[in-house]
């Protein structure tokens, strides 16, 4: 390990070699043995590490743990699983798809309804339009057939 690499690692990870990348620690120890003067590089980072180490947390999380467990206990029911699937975090795709279900159901029901619309109930004008449309379609096909 050259001095430049040692310096950049010290500036990134500080004076404590146990915080250095695992694959660099052994090389760093060897480099320090060969170059005792490099301890100055580590010493330059020591003061900051000591200041950072003053910010220690000793928070009792037992109540939070209980609260989380209360929320997770019994969450494996079918309804919970369905809700978890239906409303995933970060994506609205599934709720949107599920929202389409009533529309699809309506289309299916509508297409299967027997409305009993016999011809006598149709308007004459409507029948004429249908006939005209059939004629137009067959003429178009014939015209296409000549090409």
């Amino acid at each position: 390990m050259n001095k430049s690499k040692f310096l950049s690692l010290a500036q990134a990870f500080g004076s404590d070699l146990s915080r250095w990348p695992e694959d660099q620690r052994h090389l760093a120890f060897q480099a320090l043995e060969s170059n005792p003067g490099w301890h100055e590089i580590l010493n330059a980072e020591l003061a900051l590490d000591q200041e950072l180490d003053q910010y220690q947390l000793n928070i009792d999380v037992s109540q939070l743990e209980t609260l989380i467990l209360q929320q997770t206990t019994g969450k494996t029911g079918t309804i919970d699983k369905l809700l978890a699937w239906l409303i995933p975090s970060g994506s609205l795709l599934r709720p949107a798809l599920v929202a389409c279900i009533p529309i699809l159901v309506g289309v299916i029901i509508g297409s299967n309804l027997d409305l009993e619309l016999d011809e006598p109930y149709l308007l004459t004008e409507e029948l004429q339009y249908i006939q005209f449309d059939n004629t137009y379609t067959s003429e178009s096909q014939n015209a296409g057939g000549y090409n």
Partner: protein
Amino acid sequence: MTAAGSVDESALIARTKDGDNTAFQILLHRYLPMINNYAVRMLGNQADAADICQEVFIRFWQKSDSFDPGRAKLSTWLHQIAHNLCIDHFRKHANIRFSDSEAELAERPSQELSETEFEDELKVKDAISQLPERQRSALLFCHYQGLSNKQAAEILDVSVDALESLLARARKTLRLRLEEPAHE
């Protein structure tokens, strides 16, 4: 972590995936303090950190199927979720800085600090809070959370070299800020 510990954890994860609440409870007990400390240092207060922790572990419980132990360590995965939630929190509360640091520290139980220690800790906390989010996360992961450089780089979605750059900039900024004389 020992090999035995690792196997033990794999079994606990597998049981959690099968809906075993006892296995989940063991993992929660193991990782909650770590994730909570990250969130507190990231957000600056315990109330918001508690919300983040609840979300992290409820997601773990509900979506443990999506965690692949072969691809990442559980600690990395949980930190990743916590980190993303913290970033979301910052986006939603862009104009809100850290809560009253003195009040938060004063509320902390079972900790008797001298006035000087209290001020020093407050100064460090404030200096960290002023770092850009990515630099702050990088520093927290590598200095306080005990994650490896590869784990931290994976969570931040950067190369190991880029992580080193983030860390070096964070430490340089902190050094300058902590050398500044305290106001009044």
